[in-house]
């Protein structure tokens, strides 16, 4: 189900429409980085991503009066961004509506629930044995692993994972935003999550071995994770 326009949204939209600058400034501050992260799923160019976001904000300003409360304010702004991104990136490289097999180099599938078409794991999964997953996921190294794994996903998987899991947008809204069928959306999400899982799996199992090794010797093996961190980072900090 699409997320519905709620009370908080209504209060905010009313303030914006009454010309409340503080409300608008707060909206820009709260959403700008996230919009840029979404824009970066459409382009590897940081400056083009900035242009996409800037045009999005201008369109938001112009469009606020016409906003019809049929979605959340955030989803509406995301949809403006996606349209701008398609237009602007079309100049960089032609926007092609990508079908799953072309994108992944994986065989085409026709998916039905429970038909067993997504495929098995490549290795039998072994428990990670995390006592406190939330704490582990807050460590700098683990965040890097997850960010890099997301950055390396094929474009459509990256968009779907970003919207569904990082931004927590509903499946129905993601289908609308990205012009995807429900089945494709599921498959892209599953494949994206499966790839991020694989990266975490390698990292966490390697980390467990490392702890055993460092318990055996006093060698400091910190920083053994060696995947490049420079590939299309999701949240690119200034000057990095």
């Amino acid at each position: 189900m699409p997320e519905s326009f709620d009370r908080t949204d209504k209060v905010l939209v009313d303030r914006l429409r009454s010309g409340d600058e503080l409300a608008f400034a707060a909206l820009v501050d709260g959403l700008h980085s996230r919009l840029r992260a979404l824009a970066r799923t459409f382009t590897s160019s940081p400056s083009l991503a900035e242009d996409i976001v800037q045009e999005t904000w201008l369109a938001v300003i112009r469009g606020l009066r016409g906003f019809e409360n049929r979605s959340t304010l955030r989803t509406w702004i995301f949809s403006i961004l996606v349209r701008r991104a398609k237009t602007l990136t079309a100049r960089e490289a032609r926007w092609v509506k990508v079908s799953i097999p072309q994108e992944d180099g994986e065989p085409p599938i026709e998916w039905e629930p429970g038909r067993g078409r997504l495929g098995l794991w490549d290795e039998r999964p072994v428990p990670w044995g995390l006592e406190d997953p939330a704490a582990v996921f807050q460590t700098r190294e683990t965040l890097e692993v997850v960010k890099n794994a997301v950055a390396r996903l094929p474009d459509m998987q990256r968009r779907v994972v970003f919207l569904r899991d990082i931004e927590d947008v509903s499946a129905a809204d993601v289908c609308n935003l990205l012009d995807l069928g429900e089945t494709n959306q599921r498959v892209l999400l599953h494949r994206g999550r499966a790839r991020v899982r694989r990266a975490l799996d390698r990292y966490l199992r390697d980390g467990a071995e490392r702890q055993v090794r460092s318990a055996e010797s006093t060698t400091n093996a910190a920083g053994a994770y060696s995947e490049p961190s420079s590939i299309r980072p999701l949240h690119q900090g200034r000057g990095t």
Partner: protein
Amino acid sequence: MNCPEAIDLMGDAIDACLPSTFQASFDDHMAECSSCRTYLEHLRLTRQALQSLPRGTETSSHRKELIQKFSEEFDRTRD
């Protein structure tokens, strides 16, 4: 239900929207297959890891200009 069939449904299971027609056979498979239990747990944790990625806090480098434009837009309509 076998492992590949169960894997197809794991996304729905962690999003808590597994179709009810599959619930019983999915649960049965999970009860008997430790690999699928582990995989499902991994996918759950993966989503948790994705959800815990910090959101950037940088604002727009055109912040002032945007607020200016916003004011102009809404001033104009008040006139």
